[in-house]
């Protein structure tokens, strides 16, 4: 056990998986000697050499497209996209090929790929360094989409992702890369993809969230005197509706929190599913506390945009009062 930040937990998982399996290779911009702009791949180039930790040309579609080829050949590539704002150029390769290869070839070719992408706002970064595109990818069948909210989960989910025979987008909430530490076992362990985590139990209200927002939810809950159950989704697709359903059948009231814009954000899916699964138990309409339907503003206003603890607290009050 060691007390690690989220960055360190990911770094550890990468090292361990690379030690275990030489099919695992890392590629991306600045992942080599520089160790990545967030230092997530720090030390890996020195340790595993430039055949396994590869600085590529500056081209995201190239990174993902060639990683798809690597994966089709049976390797387990882990491409890094430097910021979620630069995932766009790779959107087509992800949705057109990574997501479709298994089914379009009826299993003859597969794409065991883990795409690592720092995500989200709150670090005073420039434009296009603070978005939350998870809903785009959750809507694309053939992918799995995960986002840890703690160092412990980060390690276990990443190991699952790397070992998963299908393409996984592994979003890393950069706001909490170094925000806190947690005990993380030295040994390898997995956290199943598709299983949510009940962070805290409660009877009055269920909050569903993921990524850095989970921390804001915890703050809001701490400040509240209500009994609130907090579910950290951990995996966005496939959605763990069972865990949510069990909670909502107990509480009857739901708040969903995410950084991405409201409209067609993944909160909509959760609201729709909760209605489908728990209609007769709902005491109030599911409430979404999310980014606005605007471009994430430049950093002077980013905290007004993000669903911070205060806005969550207000929603808790509203949904409780309904």
């Amino acid at each position, binding site marked *: 056990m060691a007390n690690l930040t989220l960055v360190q937990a990911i770094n550890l998982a990468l090292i361990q998986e690379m030690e275990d399996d030489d099919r695992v290779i890392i590629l991306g911009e600045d992942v080599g000697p520089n160790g990545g702009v967030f230092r997530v791949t720090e030390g890996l180039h020195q340790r595993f050499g430039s055949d396994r930790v590869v600085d590529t*040309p500056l081209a995201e579609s190239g990174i993902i497209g060639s990683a798809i080829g690597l994966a089709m050949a049976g*390797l387990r590539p882990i491409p890094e996209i430097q910021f979620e704002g630069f995932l766009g150029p790779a959107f087509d390769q992800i949705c057109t090929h990574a997501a479709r290869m298994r089914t379009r070839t009826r299993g003859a070719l597969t794409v065991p790929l883990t795409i690592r992408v720092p995500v989200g706002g709150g670090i005073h970064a420039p434009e296009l360094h603070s978005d939350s595109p998870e809903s785009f990818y959750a809507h694309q069948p053939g992918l799995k989409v995960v986002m840890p909210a703690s160092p412990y989960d980060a390690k276990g989910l990443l190991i699952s992702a790397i070992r998963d025979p299908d393409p996984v987008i592994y979003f890393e909430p950069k706001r909490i890369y170094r925000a806190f530490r947690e005990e993380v076992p030295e040994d390898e362990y997995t956290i199943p993809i598709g299983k949510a985590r009940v962070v805290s139990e409660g009877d009055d209200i269920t909050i569903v969230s993921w990524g850095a927002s989970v921390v804001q939810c915890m703050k809001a809950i701490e400040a509240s005197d209500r009994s609130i159950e907090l579910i950290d989704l951990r995996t966005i697709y496939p959605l763990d509706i069972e865990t949510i359903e069990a909670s909502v059948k107990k509480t009857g009231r739901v708040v969903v929190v995410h950084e991405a814009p409201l409209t067609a954000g993944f909160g909509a899916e959760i609201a729709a599913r909760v209605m489908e699964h728990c209609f007769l138990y709902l005491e109030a309409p599911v409430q979404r506390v999310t980014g606005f339907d605007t471009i994430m503003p430049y950093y002077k206003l980013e905290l007004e945009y993000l669903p911070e603890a205060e806005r969550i607290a207000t929603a808790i009050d509203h949904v409780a009062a309904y």
Partner: protein
Amino acid sequence: MPLKKAFTTTIDNVSILDEHGSFDAKLGAPGGKPIIPDDDLVKLYEHMCLCRKYDEVAFKLQRSGRMGTYPENRGQEATSLGAAYALNGDDWLVPCYRENAGLFWRGLPLEFVLLHWMGDERGNAIPEGMCITPLAIPIGTQMLHATGLAWASKYRNEKRLACTFFGDGATSEGDFHEAANFAANLDIPVIFFCQNNGWAISVPTKIQCSAPTIAQRGIAYGMDSIQCDGNDIFAVVYCMKEAAKRARENNRPTFIEAVTYRLGDHTTADDARRYRDAKEVEKWNNRDPMIRLRNYLVQRKLWDDAKQEAAVARAKEAVTAAVKRAEEIASPKTADIFNSMYAELPDDLVIQRETMMTHSLGQHPEELPPTSTQQRTHQQA
């Protein structure tokens, strides 16, 4: 003081057996040893007969409503065939959709391509070990997979390469640029094989590339690049052998532009008369790679009318059998929509598959309240 030269280069053009039947022995048979032995040459020509017949039948299948959209390959047989011929059986072939000749040479069962165009994914379930990726519909995207596949071979030190095929239009896509740039800068053994057939649907090549050659695209990456007569199978094989050597010995990529022509419409959904000149087609009809090769074989006494007749008959038989296999395959099951989505199907997809519904009420009958009255009670409980 004049300007300094920072870089100078040249693009060569290779032609060995030209449209008038003249054969360049220096390139085509260096030291008296032909780059394609006679036996092979006959086999290659016979294979072209097969592919031409296949094309004709596939076209008719579409016209008679037994198959969906189909892109005729007619006139382009020498390109992918020459390429596949020059490679090893474990080199990756990463095609677009006009490479029947090369894929069948490698051994892809004929019915696979039919199944694909019949709207059946089983046409892409390439048998293991065949080292072929499925037909690529989104233009220009598959070259990156070739780069990745070849990269993996290099990583494993296997001395295998990947050869990817694409059209003139495809070289306009950003993904082409990225694939070539990765291969050149990371030393990856890929052959970028461009089939410049003059058109991308209705758009002429000069809108895709107004430079004198498409081959010079490769100069951008410091890649060895060459242009050849794509209707001359000798020229194709010549370029491929050089490229394969370079790939295997030095992990270096090559860009090959094979100049050819699409004799038919873009696909069965297209009518090329809307945008191109009958005279142009006529000119290229005379440059048909099969005419050229047949004349050469006849001249060399390796071929005659009787052989031709026999070859066409064999081709017909093989194609008919393939159509039969494709049409007799059992219809896909609706469950097939789901079964290959993931190695392990998520619960939610299992439910969708079992119920063939996306609306939740039908999917979870146990949750349907027996009556509406009960519903209210339940909710207020």
